[in-house]
């Protein structure tokens, strides 16, 4: 009945800001069963082998977007990546690429939060309505226009997949642009002109060279590359149309 306990090697990129000058690799021998995710493997390390290991996680079911890591060099949610798929080889786990490492597998995401704020991720109503006028109605077609882009869980895998963001961290990047697009194409929203200034800016969509890997790694099929590239067209239209219809103070 009792089988030999299987163990797998998990190699973790460690970094302690108070002790280490630079990150280093550490290998742990972790007992596992076929239903264990990489997140559970890392949790085993923290619970039984080395309590100082730091990482973010919450829901364990691919909706909170906290547990993104580089697993064998691929940006992945560690809760939906399984150890059995790597066994008997060693699994390499590293903090999400292109972000500064705060400690071990924890990245510094302040830059992203600032970008998220800058896109005004909320509906700026086209027309003010009183409660008595009722809700803002929308047809299924109008919902379809943005629904896919509203599925983003801010897991940042797309940034870890974007070499242009890695080379220039001021690039607004895939997820923030997808969310910006989500509001711009919402029939209830009237904030497009304000957001287009960001799209057109030095930090905007023309940093993208259509690598397309962001959409490959997105666990929610948001297709951020599509949002970014559609806005290249929008930006070009915005630029040329101003000669036909001057907008006054537009940049």
């Amino acid at each position, binding site marked *: 009945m009792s089988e030999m306990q299987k163990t797998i090697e998990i190699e973790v990129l460690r*970094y302690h*800001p*108070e002790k280490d000058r*630079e*990150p280093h690799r550490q290998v742990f021998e972790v007992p596992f069963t076929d239903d264990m995710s990489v997140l559970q493997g890392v949790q085993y390390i923290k619970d039984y082998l080395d309590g100082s290991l730091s990482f973010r996680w919450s829901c364990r079911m691919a909706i909170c977007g906290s547990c993104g890591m580089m697993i064998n*060099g*691929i940006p992945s949610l560690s809760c939906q990546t399984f150890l059995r798929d790597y066994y008997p080889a060693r699994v390499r786990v590293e903090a999400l*690429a*292109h972000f*500064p*490492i*705060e400690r071990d597998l924890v990245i*510094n995401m302040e830059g992203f939060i600032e970008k998220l704020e800058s896109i005004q991720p909320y509906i700026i109503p086209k027309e003010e309505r009183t409660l008595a006028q009722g809700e803002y109605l929308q047809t299924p077609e109008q919902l*379809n226009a943005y629904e896919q882009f509203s599925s983003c869980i801010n897991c940042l895998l797309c940034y870890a997949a974007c*070499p242009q963001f*890695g*080379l220039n961290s001021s690039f607004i990047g895939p997820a923030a642009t997808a969310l910006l697009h989500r509001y711009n194409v919402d029939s209830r929203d009237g904030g497009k002109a304000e957001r287009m200034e960001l799209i057109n800016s030095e930090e905007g969509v023309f940093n993208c*060279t*259509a*690598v*397309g*890997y962001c*959409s*490959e790694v997105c666990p929610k099929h948001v*297709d951020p*590359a*599509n949002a970014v*590239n*559609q806005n*290249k*067209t929008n930006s070009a239209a915005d630029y040329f149309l101003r000669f036909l219809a001057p907008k006054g103070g537009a940049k």
Partner: protein
Amino acid sequence: MNKRRPYVRSMDGWWRKNPFFVEYMIHEGTALFVAAYAGVLLAGLYRLSQGEAAWNSWLDALKNPWYIAFHLAALAALSYHTYTWFKIMPRTMPPVVVGGERLPGWVITAGGLAAAAASCLGLLALVWGMAR
């Protein structure tokens, strides 16, 4: 005192770290063949403007084995460029809705490849007809 000291990793050799990026760099690299081939055609146009003798000497130069090898390499590179170009195309355009349904990406890719193949064959047939 703030004990935070976020570590920024180097981007050196970033494109060698993932097969997806290697393929991307090959795709971008094949654009050099597109530019080089455009240069060859422009040179031909320039020689044509210089008269018949110049044009004929350009045609003769094209028969050089090195030139033929370049053309074969360019054909391979441009084919790959075309394939990867249309592969990424669905990600770069607004959704195409046909009969209330969004057209899947592979249909757009297949349509692009079919259009490329048809225009190549059409051009080949046209030139073939003119040369006979």
